[in-house]
């Protein structure tokens, strides 16, 4: 299940809903990404995320399908905010359910690496010094490279 939306969401409520979808699972892993209040350029006032539908959805759905191929998952959910957010707001929520906890951990980690590097989003931070479009960090590319097929 994938949802990209300008609407705020509550990670706890999403986790509760996910648990009912994941009947028979032994383990559920969730990741919630939040808007940080500090960036290299200072205190963050707002973060704006822009997506390009349906390219953004298509990319994430491909990554979700790849996760299902690699790990035995009973359920899988990705929620991503777009639009303007304030510090502390949830940007992204990923949940994975599997019989085995290792599969759930790895699949969630894998999806987050995709979402943080290759997902089709552009983002702008508003700080005291103005608005800045954010470029990918090299650490993100290294994390993503961990999943390269050999």
């Amino acid at each position, binding site marked *: 299940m994938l949802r990209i939306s300008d609407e705020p969401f509550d990670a706890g409520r999403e986790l509760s809903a996910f648990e009912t979808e994941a009947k028979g699972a032994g383990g559920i892993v969730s990741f919630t990404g939040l808007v940080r209040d500090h960036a290299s350029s200072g205190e963050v006032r707002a973060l704006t995320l822009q997506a390009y539908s349906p390219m953004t959805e298509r990319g994430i759905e491909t990554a979700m399908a790849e996760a299902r191929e690699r790990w035995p998952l009973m359920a899988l959910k990705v929620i991503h905010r777009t639009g303007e957010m304030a510090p502390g707001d949830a940007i992204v929520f990923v949940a994975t359910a599997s019989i085995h906890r290792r599969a759930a951990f790895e699949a969630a980690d894998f999806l987050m690496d995709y979402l943080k590097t290759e*997902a089709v989003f552009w983002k702008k931070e508003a700080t005291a010094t103005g608005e800045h479009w954010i470029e990918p960090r090299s650490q993100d590319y290294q994390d993503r490279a961990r999943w390269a097929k050999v």
Partner: protein
Amino acid sequence: MAQLLYFGRLMDTLGRPEETLTLPTSVRDTSALREWLDRDRGLDGALLEKTIRLAVNSEIVADPHPVSDGDEIAFMPPVGGG
């Protein structure tokens, strides 16, 4: 008429998120489109950067890729992830 979409910082560069216009008859592929639009708006090469990718009808393409009226053409700076 083609619909042009400008994402990320290009939204600021072009001063708008999108526009609809008739492509000049000389513009038949993405390379020609980049050059014509960059010159037309006086952008000093901002649209010629290799890191700017173009998508035609929501598929990323390699230059030069055919374009024509009726296409949705997106100018995409490097994606920053979510």
